[in-house]
């Protein structure tokens, strides 16, 4: 049976700059802290793309685990000991649709949310 996917666009909100590895480490660490290895293993989390300029990461997750990821993402307060928050700014079933949503969202990003 083919598992359905969801693609999430994550916006990293922090005065610091991070690499994709550091962001994924923070995500995995939050997931493991809240849901353990069993819970984390069900999410199918993997990085698809990271736009370092805009601090936006695209990740793949199982469609049943979007809320698990949302809770884990919301619990992040630091990345590499620097204050940070990560927000899910768009969710879609395909990468193409997600990128279209991101383009539409980019027009309404407030000035103080831009990095």
């Amino acid at each position, binding site marked *: 049976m083919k598992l359905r996917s969801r693609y999430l666009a994550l916006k990293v*909100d*922090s005065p610091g700059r991070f690499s994709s590895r550091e962001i994924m480490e923070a995500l995995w660490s939050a997931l493991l*802290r*809240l849901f353990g290895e069993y819970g984390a293993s069900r999410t199918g989390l993997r990085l698809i793309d990271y736009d370092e300029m805009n601090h936006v990461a695209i990740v793949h997750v199982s469609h049943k685990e979007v*809320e*698990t990821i*949302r*809770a884990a*993402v*919301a*619990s992040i*307060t630091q990345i590499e000991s620097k*204050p*940070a*928050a990560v*927000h*899910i700014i768009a969710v879609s079933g395909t990468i193409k649709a997600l990128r279209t949503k991101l383009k539409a969202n980019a027009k309404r*990003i*407030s000035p*103080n*949310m831009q990095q």
Partner: protein
Amino acid sequence: MRRIFADLHLKPNLADMELAERMLRRAAYFGYRLVSVPLAPTLTLSQNKQLIEQLTALSKEVGLDFVSRLDVKPKTSNELLRILRRFRRSFEIIAVFCESKAVARQAAKDRRVDLLNFSSDPRKRFFDEAEAELASRGLAALEIDIESIIRLEGAARVKLLAALRKEAAIAKAFNVPVVVSSGASEELTMRRPLEAAALTMLFDMDRSLALDAISKVPAAIVKRNREKLSPEFISPGIRLIRRGKDC
């Protein structure tokens, strides 16, 4: 119908109005429409009134509906009653931070109290069956701040989540409404409405109840109190329609 999301507990340091403005802007960007910044009973009524006017103007500028709120931290039940007598008609929301069981019980049964808030220390949380029973007969709702969940780590967070799980189950059993607020004192601890709802899954709150806790429940409390504070209000269900000799 689209939900109207509310965050009734933004806690910027009001000495820094720029921070307050940034937080209000962010709340609007996150999709909230109803927000509140608590004021303290230590300020005079005129100081509070001035702050409410400033915050209302800032909120209006970014498309938010500002709700005036007073946070009280009484040491005794008598102090709580004194504060309620003095301030109830000046604020749309009154939240009581219950530091003792006696205060928690008095706040739960007093119909002038809107929100019951507790410490993040599970030993100082007094929302048990008796408290819920009193609250279900009154109008008070249980307020849960998500900042304490995201700030704590390790054993402290585990203990808090266990306490919240028990409280959410008790509130559901006794039909006590739950309000989920951010409790954020800085921009980086603010969360989007769906993120706040997702965090409630950590203490096993139903998703529909969680969504209501950030939308319908706070909106209903604000609506009820605005009606009560309006000059046309006479008593629940009765309001003045028209004044004059030809009535």
